[in-house]
């Protein structure tokens, strides 16, 4: 009798554990991804830069990479031309509808170069190359100096010219709330 009680207690414990581990998971579909898979795919960079990988680069190094891998589309001096977009200006402090002058964080630039450039082979640049290319773009827009070293620690500290120039359409408005007449846009 004591034996069966302890078995029962054990069964209850096991059942409770199963219930706890399955809490919220109703359908038991999908599989747990490995750490490596998540790490390989987790390329989005937040404004605080916590996902940035090790590595570094300067505008000087970036100039060589730009000439080799970017100039074909962005123009030899980064001013674009034809159907392509230049890299200047990226950080114009007077945003009168200048494309890309509204980028709020330097991490945004790093992230996009890393995931989407060069267009012929996106994602092919090494971390060092992305730091260098980012540094070159920021240097060409007078945001950093040619010799400034960008790495995981310094990049998030770079302040883009329009960082403080963003306002919500109607201050205080939250999604789902009614807005005053005509306040869209």
């Amino acid at each position, binding site marked *: 009798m004591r034996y069966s009680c302890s078995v029962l207690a054990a069964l209850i414990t096991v059942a409770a554990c199963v219930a706890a581990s399955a809490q919220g998971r109703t359908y038991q579909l999908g599989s747990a991804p490995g750490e490596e898979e998540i790490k390989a795919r987790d390329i989005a960079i937040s404004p605080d830069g916590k996902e940035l990988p090790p590595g570094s680069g300067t505008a000087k190094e970036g100039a060589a990479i730009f000439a080799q891998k970017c100039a074909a589309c962005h123009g030899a001096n980064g001013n674009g031309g034809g159907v392509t977009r230049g890299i200047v200006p990226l950080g114009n402090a007077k945003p009168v509808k200048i494309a890309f002058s509204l980028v709020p964080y330097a991490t945004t630039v790093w992230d996009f170069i890393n995931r989407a450039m060069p267009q012929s082979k996106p994602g092919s640049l090494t971390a060092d190359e992305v730091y260098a290319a980012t540094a070159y773009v920021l240097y060409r827009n007078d945001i950093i100096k040619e010799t400034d070293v960008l790495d995981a620690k310094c990049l998030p500290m770079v302040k883009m010219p329009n960082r403080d120039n*963003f306002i919500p359409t109607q201050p205080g408005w939250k999604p789902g709330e009614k807005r005053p007449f005509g306040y869209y846009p």
Partner: protein
Amino acid sequence: MGSHSHSDRRWFLKRGALVSFMMGAVRSLRGQTPTREKLLKDDLAYGQPSPFDNTIRKTLGQATAVTDTALTTPLQDLDGIITPSGLHFLMDHVKGWPDIDPKEHRLLIHGMVDRPLTYTMDELKRLPSVSRIYFLECNANNRPLRGANGESVQFVHGRTSCSEWTGVLLSVLLNECGVQKEASWIVAEGSDANKYTMSIPLAKAMDDILVAYAQNGEPVRPQQGYPLRLVVPGWEAIRSVKWLSRIKVVDQPYMAWHESGNNADTIPNGKGLWYRFELGPNSVITRPSGGQRLPGRGFYEITGLAWTGGGAVTKVEVSVDGGRSYKVAELQQPVHRYAHTRFRFPWTWNGEEAVLQSRCTDERAEVQPTLAEAAKNLGVSPDYFYQADHFNGIQPWKVSGDGSVQNALFL
């Protein structure tokens, strides 16, 4: 015979313009040319429109050729509220669309969750599904440019479409993963060449965002995100990430490229307008509309579409005198929240000049403004909206004495 070959020729031209453009790469890889015989077989396997019908998308700003992947829905040629999938507007931010084998496709959900999970397409289709009719609208729609761009409703308003989407509510998937209480945003990513990325507040994700695998009853078209896309109802369509392959649950917006520099508008004081999410109440008369010509006086049904990011359209009013007076139009029932709403209004044209326009009111009692009102609210001159990316102003169409109809927004 003559009629037959004429229709075949039109058929071929129409199919040639679109198919060779859209599918050219694929066909040439297979070494095939779209012969008539091949097309007829296509017509049996998947029925095609009549060769007499020329309802097609058009490249923004081009009167005839379909040459670019900024394609507008021919609103003036459509009826009801559903946009045929092949006529859904397309704004291509990533230069082409990926060719994804659904057997290989995985959706990874991770970040601030208790259990990261990876789903196959088969697993997603086993989960409880919902079908909902939602519109999508590019935030640059209704950019009232002058000139050829602004002549027709297709060019001015053709970057909105409406489909029945089927899929799994994102909240179901997020609940399976167990969202941690510090989380407040998600970052959604596509598997296109650019790995297109968007940040979305978690509250919306847990509310009504759909992870859709079907559009109008069939698999989502490749240009629309096959095999999987987000559908974010009522919000700027740039948030409805196509080819969805990853969702990271986070605690802040990431301000990825396509949601920051590429999307914000500026106003004269130099400030940037950020994050407008919900689209405003909007409507437009699709018939009669710019570029059309009324053959003579007499009865015409005025019809058009209304939609709003605020939920359901509750009222559409039509004016035939440039806004001096309005009368309530009939709404096609049932009205779906976050869907195109068809309105109809009887009108007899007396042959004199008339300015036709419509005004939308939604369930939150938000009202569509005129151009002057929108400009006043934003503190800009009306011509600001030549280029601005967010505009929901009332669209006037002027019918002249000769029956011709033109865009009268800036007249």
